């Protein structure tokens, strides 16, 4: 692999693409949102189970590229167990990190730093952020709402 490509397709991303975690429709979810990217036609659904203020469970399903699938997979592992507010903060930091804003990785869970390479491929930034937008919409109780990257 060229140095360039391995920055984007890091082994953690390839691993989550091959074997996505929490890739399932969730029974008993109380929040749900669909993310859609009209540019590529990719869509995915995110389910959350909120217990009080806490995200007790998170899952997703859908079709997409390696970046969006790995991003969704890692996202579910990161937000599980977090409070709504904590998840919202991670969302905001992730949104600043993928297009390459300086210092944005400082407050992010280390695993998510693998998406820093996306900044070299501007066409793919939306792939990484699509599942996060869906998660945010689910969190904000805009249930069954469809969020679009456009």
């Amino acid at each position, binding site marked *: 692999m060229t140095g360039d490509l391995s920055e984007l397709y890091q082994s953690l991303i*390839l691993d989550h693409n091959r074997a996505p975690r929490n890739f399932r429709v969730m029974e008993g979810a109380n929040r749900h949102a669909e993310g859609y990217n009209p540019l590529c*036609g990719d869509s995915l659904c995110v389910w959350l189970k909120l217990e009080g203020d806490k995200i007790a469970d998170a899952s997703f399903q859908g079709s*997409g*590229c390696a*970046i969006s699938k790995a991003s969704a997979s890692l996202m579910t592992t990161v937000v599980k167990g977090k409070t709504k507010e904590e998840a919202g903060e991670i969302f905001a930091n992730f949104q600043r990190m993928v297009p390459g804003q300086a210092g944005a990785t400082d407050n992010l869970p280390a695993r998510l730093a693998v998406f820093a390479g996306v900044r070299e491929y501007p*066409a793919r930034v939306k792939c990484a952020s699509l599942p996060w937008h869906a998660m945010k919409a689910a969190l904000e109780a805009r249930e069954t709402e469809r969020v679009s990257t456009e």
Partner: protein
Amino acid sequence: MTATARVTGITGATTPFQVERARDEFPGLTARIRGYPLVYLDNAATSQRPRRVIEAISNFELTHAANVHRGVHTLSQEATAAYDEAREKVRGFINAEHGSEIIFTSGTTASLNLVAASYGRTILKSGDEILLTEMEHHSNLVPWQLLAEQTGAVVLALPVNDRGELEQESFARLIGPRTRIVALAHVSNVLGTVNPVREIADLAHARGAVVVVDGAQAVPHLPIDVQQLGCDFYAASAHKMYGPTGVGFLYGRLDLLEKMPPWQGGGGMIERVSFEGTTFAPPPARFEAGTPPISQAVGLGAAIDYLGALPADSLAQHEQSLLIYATEQVGRLPGIRLIGTAQDRVSVLSFVFEGVHPHDVGTVLDAKGVAVRAGHHCAQPLMRRFGVQGTVRASFGFYNLREEVDLLVEALGEVRRVFG
């Protein structure tokens, strides 16, 4: 697999096409991408422009820039003459009978919207039918859906077979007494399929329907003769045929254009204006409200001159040999499924890479300097027809080399290395 692609109209053996000489004309092809020489295989999205097109535009802007029509000063008269000359070149390029049958637009999309908004809205009644095909680009689908919503007409689509072809049997089944408009691509932007426009036009006319052809993907590859095709409308864009963006044209049969109302109002399209009422100019001016894309039209004229001077037969043979070679080389890679294997097609190759999303394929190829298009190609119904999310599309122009097919294949090997 055996490639059986061919282009109608190739006559006998010709001298090989001088690809390297043609490439010298295209400054855009010398770019380096991520450290690699550019392999430009996205010609169905937009082609590169030859130096003489760029120079024609820049020459117009440098020495003739003025608005067209009604100008009494010299520059305006020069601009008008250049604009009229470009229209005459388009007329000759598609062998229309009259120059007034050529309307300049911003591109194929605007041309098709013009037909829908002006012709369609005038003649369609509730329950009338518009017959499309499953392989249409959204630009030859959505305007008809909007029109159907406004008029109560119904949109129907001809199915596409597994090879990516239309079948006459289904046409006979779907065309009916209420069919008023048949709209189809001359060439599919995804499959490369060349559709039998003449046969369909004859059948449609026998039932009293008009035929609207989206020629965007045909103009860079095939000789176009609208009288031989027998279509009523023909739409195309300059930027897919080595001309600039921002300009395209609509051909319309004069007797139809003369009856059609304007679709946009403004300067240049009127005969006489008063607050009591306005009368409109005859075609084509009636359909060209506002200042047109003048320098772009001049650029389109230069592209037509450029194409006209190339040896058409050996050029077509070169494109076909690229298609056959690419079909063989890409088609035999493990895990690749070709989408679109029509008997009659142009140099467009769509495929899916098993287990890898088209956008990931596109990104890996880009890292090797290979520019392809990946995704649904604005043809979502066709993607559903083939049961795919999207495809990777390599589309070849006459300036592409066999070696570039090899580089594509090599880069596809990299996709396998990354994704396993």
